[in-house]
Each structure stands twice: as C-alpha cells, then as structure tokens.
C-alpha cells in the first residue's frame, strides 16, 4: 500500500503524520516544492519581524520524517497527474504510482492584474524563499517606504512584522473601506484601525491599485482615483487562489477549489484533498484549524476508519500589537430573523457584538478584550442558546465559565 501526498504544507504533513499515528503500515511519500522541512506558515511572520530565526521555524526535529518512516521529497515539483493510474509525474521526468493520492497543494498568492506587478520590489509572502527575498530587499540600501496591498489578516500581520523589524513607513492599502472586511463589521474595523495607527501603521482605505510605476524597480503606486503613493517596496496580500491546475488537467471536478465530498474524496475514488486547495460544501477555508480537521479526516479514511468531515466553524483569534480579536461564525448576517446585541467602548477600545438566530448564538466579534472570547467562540461553534445568560454576555464582569455548563 502506497500513499502519495502532494504538498508538504500543514495539510499534507498532518495527513501523513496522522496516518502514522493511526498505525497505518502504508508507505507514505510526501512531495514538497520547498526545500525545507515542514513549518507552519504563520511562523513566516515571526521570521520577518525578527522574532524567529530560520533554524527555529521548523515544527519537528530534523530526523522526524525518517523516524516516522515518511519519505519526504524536497524541492520537487509535481508536473502531471494521472487519475486512472493513480500516478504523479515529478519534475517532468519520472512517474510514480500510488494506491491513494492526497492533494494538499495549497494555494498561491493572488496578484492583481495591473501593469508593473512584475517589477523588482513587488513581493508576495507564501514561502520561506519569499520571506528571505523580501527581507534582503528591505534591508539592502536605503530604507524603502513599504506599501502592503490588502488589509486582511495576512496584510495586517505582514505590516506589523515589518514595522517590528524597524522600518518606519508602512502603509496598508485596502480596496474595501474598512480593515479585515471578512472578519469585522464597520464599527469594529474603525476601532481596530485607531489601535493600529497608534502603533505606527498608516492606512489608505477604499483605494484600488491601478499601476505600479518605477524605472527598473518600484517607486510608486498609482490608484484608480488618480492619486498616488511613494513605494520602495510593495507586498501583495490580496488573497490566495487554490492551486487546482494539476487536478483540473487530470479531469478531477473543480469549482474555485478542488471539489471533495464529506469523506474528503475528490471526484475520483482513492484521490483525496485537504487544506487550502479543497472546496467542501462550497467552502474553501484557508484556515489552519480547517486544514487540520481535513488532513486528519483524510488520514482516517485512508486508514480504513471511515470518517466524515462536517466543516469547521471559522473561529479566529488574532492579536495585533496587543489588540485581541476573536471573531466566530456569522458576523455580518444578511436576511431576516437575526437579533444583534452589541456594546462599544471607544475609550477602552473594546467592541463586542453577538449575533443570534432563534436565540442560538451564531456569530460574535470580541475586539480589544480577551476575557470571554474563547467561551463565546465555543458557544458559537456549538450554536447554543445561552438562555438565562443572554442579557449578561456583554457585561465585562460576567463569569464566562458559567457558559461551559450550558
């Protein structure tokens, strides 16, 4: 029995790791594009900030894969996929055949289709090599004015990290008129922005990039409204796209992502998918907890222990410069039948919002405060009715541990 895992990111690695933990005797082969052992991508942020040196980025000891009898092929590209033969082509040279395949090919940064995006000084961040070339560029020569395109989670994290590196001018540009458009509503986004401005970040909201200008390398960015901004370095953090090219060519059913059923099987029996490439019940998560759940589910099914994946409720705790943010479930409800309770304390920088449907808690924003965030988030995941406590949930002094007994 041989399982070939395409991709050495979190999903691919955890699928292999879990398969071993389940006692599977299968031969496990992981093929990874990067030349490094497994690391979780959030560590790239700490690396850029200067908090984590390269040699400490990796999750497992150097002999981990060998001890687990997992064969990892580093720095190799998958160039072909034959779904009938259950075979993959590596580096356009050799084909290897397996009994099962796991596609964990992840996602690639989305680059805007604007003139100048290929210029020197334009970066995206997905790999260790990306991070290293960015750092080299930022620290060579006079300090550049840095522009981060994208005010989502990754954009804010990158901006914070570069500021922490010691660079002075870092501007986040966001197409929407608020930060974290997927995680926050308008009130929360405004509050977060104020907090981040206090720590030195600059923001330009509601701006759409039109062109990146510069001779040889970038010098400024022009926006659709005609305005411009000096930019010695530009980092694009405007979302990602699932890497489905191979799957598409091989004839596996795809939408925006690679389609999987509740067993995380693709349209071809014996071929599974997990992580950022997978689309399950219309959702592509792009979140570590989801990639984790999916990788585990794949491993169980591979090990012959049938297991269904029911989806992952996106709960995200983010911390930017001491600003806590927990968002869970549905935060911007559309349609009828929702009840919203909220409380805003501008002075303390605290914002709490709860979204109910039929008395069940279905969504929450907890900004600038940590206490209660986890309990609320759990309540959302369980879609529970907080019953008698409903009116107390927004109070700072509420004993949130009471919710655990609901």
């Amino acid at each position, binding site marked *: 029995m041989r399982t070939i895992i395409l991709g050495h990111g979190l999903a691919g690695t955890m699928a292999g790791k879990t398969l071993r933990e389940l006692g599977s005797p299968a031969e496990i082969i992981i093929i990874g594009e990067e030349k490094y052992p497994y690391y979780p991508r959030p560590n790239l942020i700490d690396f850029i900030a200067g908090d984590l040196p390269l040699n400490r980025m*990796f999750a497992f000891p150097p002999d981990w894969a060998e001890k687990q009898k997992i064969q990892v092929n580093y720095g190799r590209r998958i160039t072909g996929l034959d779904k009938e033969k259950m075979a993959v082509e590596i580096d356009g040279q050799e084909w290897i055949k397996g009994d099962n395949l796991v596609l964990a090919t992840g996602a690639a940064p989305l680059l805007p289709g604007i003139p100048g995006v290929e210029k020197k000084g334009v970066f995206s961040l997905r790999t260790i090599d990306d991070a290293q070339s960015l750092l080299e560029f930022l620290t060579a020569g006079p300090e550049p004015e840095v522009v981060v395109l994208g005010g989502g989670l990754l954009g804010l994290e990158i901006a914070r990290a570069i500021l922490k590196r010691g660079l002075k001018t870092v501007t986040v540009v966001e197409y929407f008129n608020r930060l974290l458009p997927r995680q926050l509503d308008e009130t929360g986004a405004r509050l977060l922005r104020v907090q981040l401005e206090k720590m030195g970040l600059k923001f330009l909201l509601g701006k759409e990039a039109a062109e990146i200008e510069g001779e040889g390398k970038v010098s400024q960015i022009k926006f659709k409204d005609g305005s411009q901004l000096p930019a010695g370095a530009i980092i694009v953090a405007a979302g990602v796209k699932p890497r489905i090219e191979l799957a598409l060519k091989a004839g596996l059913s795809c939408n925006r992502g690679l389609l999987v059923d509740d067993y995380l099987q693709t349209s071809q029996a014996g071929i599974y998918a997990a992580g950022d490439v997978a689309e399950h019940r219309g959702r592509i998560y792009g979140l570590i907890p989801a990639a*984790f759940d999916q990788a585990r589910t794949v491993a169980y099914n591979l090990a012959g222990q049938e297991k269904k994946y029911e989806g992952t409720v996106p709960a995200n705790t983010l911390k930017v410069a001491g600003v806590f943010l927990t968002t869970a479930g549905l935060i911007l409800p559309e349609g009828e039948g929702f009840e919203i309770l909220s409380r805003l304390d501008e002075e303390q920088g605290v914002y709490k919002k709860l979204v109910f449907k039929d008395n069940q808690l279905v969504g929450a924003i907890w900004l600038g405060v940590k206490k209660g965030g986890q309990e609320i988030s759990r309540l959302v995941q369980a879609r529970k009715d907080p019953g008698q406590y409903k009116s107390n949930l927004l109070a700072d002094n509420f004993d949130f541990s009471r919710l655990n007994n609901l």
Partner: protein
Amino acid sequence: MEKWECTACGYIYDPEAGDPEHDIPPGTPFESLPDDWVCPQCGVSKEFFQKID
C-alpha cells in the same frame, strides 16, 4: 498552573503534563518553556499561544 491554547490549531499546553516528547518535564509552566519551543501539534511559535482564563 494555567493552561495555554495554540490559537493556530487548538492544541492545549497543560503544564501538569508538560511535553515529554520534546523534553519538557511535567510541571513546567508555560512561561518557563524555552523560546524555541513550538506547538507540538502544528509547529507555530510560542507567540501564538494564549492563556486560557
């Protein structure tokens, strides 16, 4: 002693149990973990951990 949760993957560090697989003996508070300790489940750095109240 307080437990800490990995905000990336949900792993919970329990000081009473430690992390013997990575030479962290039982009874080691989170604050005393070495700087290069990473989440044994997903590998993110200590920065990603939050105290569970």
